[in-house]
């Protein structure tokens, strides 16, 4: 085992000359990767969006001037927002339970969580389709229990999308939340109780503020991922609540209209980066979990 100080002095001794070349030099390989795999494709998209079919901002004007496309933008935000809120509402108690569980049990629950995350996305989405349809398990059970007479419309609409997407997004909110909650000293809650705080006060004035960094980074991740989500909304949703990713796929694959597809993709990218910038500015965390 090398002690911490040993490593530090070793690093210092070896790295100093390199550092004199400037930190910039060291970041060059990473920068190059970003340029080749991110900046160039986005630039290509930008060029297409203002040159196809004709030069100008026509695509953007059409995209932002049409009631139908605006509705798709609106749907995208509403669905992403609803999924984020529901994921938080379910994810928080789960993360909390995980954090206070005996660690062996928690690792089993984690394994289940990760396994479900790694199962093929399409298979999971189709599974929901089968569960949620009129003659599916959920409706059949509810009817057999006498709770409803007619099958509930659970799929091919917003309900289906919300259920399917929330299920898929949950791990992305539970994991950062778990990291934050586990670091909260349970003694703080005891102290709060001793000082006369009710359970509600302990939750809203101590637990939630302390867990806020994890909630924010988890929520942002889920929201941003939802904005660009394709498979689940396409399969579990109806056409009336189409999301942006599906519109982009239609433009590119079906209509072969890359100008419009590129414009829509860029609008989505700008929104995503803006959200990210706001979070950085307000909370100073880049979604890496709490500190």
């Amino acid at each position: 085992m090398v002690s911490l100080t040993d490593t530090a002095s070793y690093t210092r001794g070896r790295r100093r000359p390199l550092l004199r070349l400037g930190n910039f030099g060291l970041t060059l390989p990473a920068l190059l990767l970003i340029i080749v795999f991110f900046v160039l494709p986005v630039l290509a998209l930008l060029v297409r969006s203002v040159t196809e079919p004709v030069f100008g901002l026509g695509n953007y004007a059409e995209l932002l001037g049409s009631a139908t496309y605006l509705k798709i933008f609106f749907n995208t935000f509403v669905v992403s927002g609803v999924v984020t809120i529901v994921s938080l509402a379910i994810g928080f108690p789960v993360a909390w339970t995980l954090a206070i569980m005996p660690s062996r049990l928690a690792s089993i629950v984690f394994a289940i969580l990760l396994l479900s995350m790694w199962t093929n996305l399409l298979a999971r989405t189709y599974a929901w389709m089968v569960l949620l349809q009129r003659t599916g398990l959920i409706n059949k059970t509810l009817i057999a229990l006498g709770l409803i007479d007619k099958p509930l419309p659970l799929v091919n609409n917003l309900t289906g999308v919300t259920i399917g997407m929330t299920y898929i997004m949950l791990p992305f909110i539970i994991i950062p939340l778990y990291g934050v909650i586990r670091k909260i000293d349970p003694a703080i809650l005891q102290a709060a109780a001793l000082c006369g705080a009710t359970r509600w006060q302990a939750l809203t004035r101590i637990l939630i503020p302390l867990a806020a960094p994890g909630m924010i980074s988890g929520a942002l991740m889920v929201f941003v991922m939802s904005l660009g989500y394709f498979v689940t909304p396409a399969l579990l949703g109806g056409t009336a609540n189409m999301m942006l990713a599906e519109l982009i796929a239609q433009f590119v694959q079906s209509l072969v209209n890359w100008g419009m597809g590129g414009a829509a993709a860029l609008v989505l990218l700008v929104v995503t980066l803006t959200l990210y910038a706001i979070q950085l500015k307000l909370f100073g965390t880049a979604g890496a979990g709490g500190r």
Partner: protein
Amino acid sequence: MSKLFTIATIAALVGVGSQASAADMVFTSWGGTTQDVQKAAWADKFSSQEGVNIIQDGPTDYGKIKAMVEAGGVTWDVIDVEGDYAVQAGNNGLLEKLDFSVIDKTKLDPRFVTDYSVGSFYYSFVIGCNKDVVDACPKTWADLFDTAKFPGKRTFYKWSAPGVIEAALLADGVAPDKLYPLDLDRAFKKLDTIKSDIIWWSAGAQSQQLLASAEAPFGSFWNGRLTALAESGVTVETSWEQNITAADVLVVPKGAKNKDTAMKFIAFATSPEAQAEMAKGTGYAPTNVDSSKLMDPELAKTLPDQQTASQINADMSYWAEHRDEIGERWYAWQAK
């Protein structure tokens, strides 16, 4: 040990890589059962006969075709595409002209032959119904649009392609010979009347799932999917009344690396024997007029080419010309 493993892995990867580059041709189609049959009936036989290595790829993606041709890096040699797309792509310079000195077109159904494409197989949009769950099945497009007589959800093809707009117009009483040019206003008005009762299917397997589970007890389907579903034990009723036909076609993208092999492959795939095999496996009709002689008459009777009396040809050149504007209107209407 781990070093050994690494070396073995690299060797394996290199092996796979060289195998792929030794491919003599890449065939791309839509996946699923149709491509399985295309592989068995065409590619495998052609491979063993000609000693040519064929790699299967997919699904077909029009955006990708355009990207490949424009970037000059075409990795597909023969692609199964929709008929109207082929006409449009040919006009836009994305396809190679077919070599009809290699491909014998004299026996091919002329409805599905252009300079750039020949029919791969042909299908009909028909009315399908799950008889296990309803008392009466819709027989005509007018029935399928009649929610009073046939209450419940109905399923239609989601993408903008020949089929649904024609069905709406026929349901509204337009005569088959007066379909084109398509009266889009009238079609969308008719579609509006059942919009809230439509569940869209985007892939063949999904249409089968919707019908079998009775999520939508009836709707408009590719005939071959109904045949397959009936074989799996679901009581399916198919109505051929005014069945609307369109074909998939085979094309060669511009700049295909193995153009000559591609032409030979297409010649093989459209031969009477290969087309008969394809029809046997899929329930879709052969595009070679000599194929039906090679098939079991009972089976041949179930195919769209035997339903020509009540058949309506989707007009591919009309669709090719108006593909973009219909598409944009279609998706906008769906999302409304």
